[in-house]
């Protein structure tokens, strides 16, 4: 049977590729997995392997030709085989079309698991059991859902029931624990958080910020902001604004561990934590101190959206200089987050709560919020850290500067 060799999709954003060189000529035999043709997309050269064994019957796309992803490059098959139908179908394909659906010529992802004998049954999976085993189980009053099958396709066979009977009737395990493998994002978080906790000399400073004026400002200006920017900045956005400005005024805090020392950075690249359900990621707003409140809000919204749909670009997460993490929305009052290395500081934001506060001898109801600054004392001293936290507090308590 003839097999198509298609332009592979080597990345989500790849739309087309060019034939650089045919490694095999028409009429040559190849085994599955042998390189057949070299293609190029942007500055990447890629060896395309034979999707099946056979003879290269037809080179459809010549060297130098550009094809959309999924476009027919060549045909493999048995000598003498008629490929006119495939060629006719390919001629009908649009040549310079946009991204075509990717043809699956890769191995399946490593996570897919062949359902094998003895593996735990998925919830809702139909239970396969031999008639003899079923009768035996009924006689002994054993729930067949609790028996692990070792036959083909996890079918429960007589021996499986006998094993349960021998063990005293009850199946050794009923509900297998769910295992989240230490790979991908879990592994990254595992490694980075562990490294940070082991290495950084962490100190936490707490301060309560009176957010009453920020609450008032947001109420007064919310509608106007929405009109001007097309988005109503959240409390997080206003806090980002204050932190970015405080960092600009306290550059000593805006530093990273790198090379042979502490590198104090001129630009404020503010990272903020985005919850992904399983896992989290710190997206980075570049030059946050130079953005208006509307631009900051838009940047955060776009980054969070990309993060949740798994479409962050490498540049969206690289080169943060300081992180803010807000658990206030989840009802947390205060907490001590872990520094995101190689950064030197992270600010935890608690929830805004109305509290009785004594001001000038009188008790007032004010909207209070706890800030917790965790910093790496190897890189930053206590006094500058305290001054920075005081600056953030001041900027939030007198927010008239936010335009």
């Amino acid at each position, binding site marked *: 049977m003839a097999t198509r060799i298609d332009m592979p999709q080597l990345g989500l954003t790849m739309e087309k590729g060019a034939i650089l060189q045919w490694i095999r000529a028409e009429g040559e035999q190849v085994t599955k997995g042998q390189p057949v043709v070299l293609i190029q997309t942007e500055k990447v*050269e890629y060896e395309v392997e034979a999707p099946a064994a056979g003879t290269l019957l037809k080179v459809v796309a010549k060297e130098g030709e550009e094809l959309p992803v999924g476009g027919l490059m060549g045909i493999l098959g048995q000598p003498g085989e008629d490929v006119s139908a495939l060629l006719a179908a390919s001629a009908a394909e649009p040549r310079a079309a946009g991204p075509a659906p990717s043809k699956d010529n890769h191995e399946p992802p490593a996570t897919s698991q062949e359902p094998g004998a003895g593996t735990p049954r998925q919830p809702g999976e139909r239970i396969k059991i031999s008639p003899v085993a079923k009768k035996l189980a009924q006689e002994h009053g054993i729930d067949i859902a609790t028996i692990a099958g070792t036959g083909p396709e996890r079918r429960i066979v007589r021996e499986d029931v006998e094993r349960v009977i021998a063990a005293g009737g009850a199946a050794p395990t009923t509900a297998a624990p769910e295992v989240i493998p230490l*790979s991908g994002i879990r592994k990254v978080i595992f490694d980075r958080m562990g490294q940070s906790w082991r290495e950084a000399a962490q100190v936490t400073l707490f301060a309560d910020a009176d957010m009453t004026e920020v609450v008032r400002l947001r109420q007064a200006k919310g509608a106007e902001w929405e009109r001007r920017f097309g988005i109503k900045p959240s409390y997080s956005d206003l806090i980002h604004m204050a932190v970015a400005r405080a960092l600009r005024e306290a550059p000593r805090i805006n530093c990273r561990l790198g*090379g042979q020392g502490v590198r104090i950075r001129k630009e404020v690249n503010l990272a903020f934590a985005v919850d992904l359900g399983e896992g989290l990621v710190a997206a980075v707003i570049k030059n946050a101190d130079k953005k208006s409140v509307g631009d900051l809000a838009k940047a955060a919204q776009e980054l969070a959206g990309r*993060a949740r749909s798994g479409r962050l*670009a490498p*540049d969206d997460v690289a080169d943060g200089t300081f992180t803010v993490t807000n658990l206030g929305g989840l009802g947390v009052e205060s907490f001590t987050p872990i520094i995101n290395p190689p950064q030197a500081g992270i600010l935890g934001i608690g929830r805004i709560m109305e509290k009785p506060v004594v001001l000038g001898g009188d008790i007032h109801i004010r909207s209070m919020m706890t800030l917790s600054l965790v910093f790496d004392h190897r890189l930053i001293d206590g006094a500058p850290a305290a001054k920075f936290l005081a600056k953030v507090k001041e900027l939030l308590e007198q927010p008239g500067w936010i335009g």
Partner: protein
Amino acid sequence: MLAMGTVRIESRPGTAWQVLNLGLEPFGVALRRQEELVHQRLLGIVPDTLILVEHPPVVTLGRAKPRGNLLLDPAMLAAQGVEFFEITRGGDATYHAPGQLVGYPIFDLRQHGRDVLRFCRGMEAALIATLAEFGIAGEAVPGRAGVWVHGKKIASLGISVRRWITFHGFALNVTTDLAGFQVIRPCGEDPGIMTSMAAILQRPVSMDEVRRIVAERFAETFSLMEASGQTGAV
């Protein structure tokens, strides 16, 4: 196994990858080393590896690329003490010389989301983050691979992929003598388009420092890339 000689291997805490600092090594020797590592990476007997090296003067030309981008023929290059290689990688004519930090990532993209273009973006992001540590504002220009500073090219990029293993990589001009580029049209562009960190900063730059920071930013960028939700997605 690879003959390591004086090569320093650094394992980075928390990441299963290594950096090979080769110092100054001729292009041909480093190329064989890359090919050996690609093979070993395929077999899974070495982790993801970033080779960092400087080459004595050499011109390389990507396969199936016009020789017109060589302004001198190979014999004339040889007379000037410049080696010449035609190789299998994406990209066009490139010039390497001491003062230029060359990086060859031998990475298994099956563990990095199987996305070669995203991998290129990651290399650019790591280089831009490196430059930022020196106060240089580098940027990626869509459609023009590499890293640019005010319209001049500071780092070139061109990779090959064999069975999802990457090789070849990037060349970052740290203190490169830019006059050397006069023998080619780098990536088909005018030789005057190239710049270096030293040329921008107007001061000497420590290659050791750049090497160390590139390795750190690579580790950071690629671990963050995985955390950004693309692992195994394609």
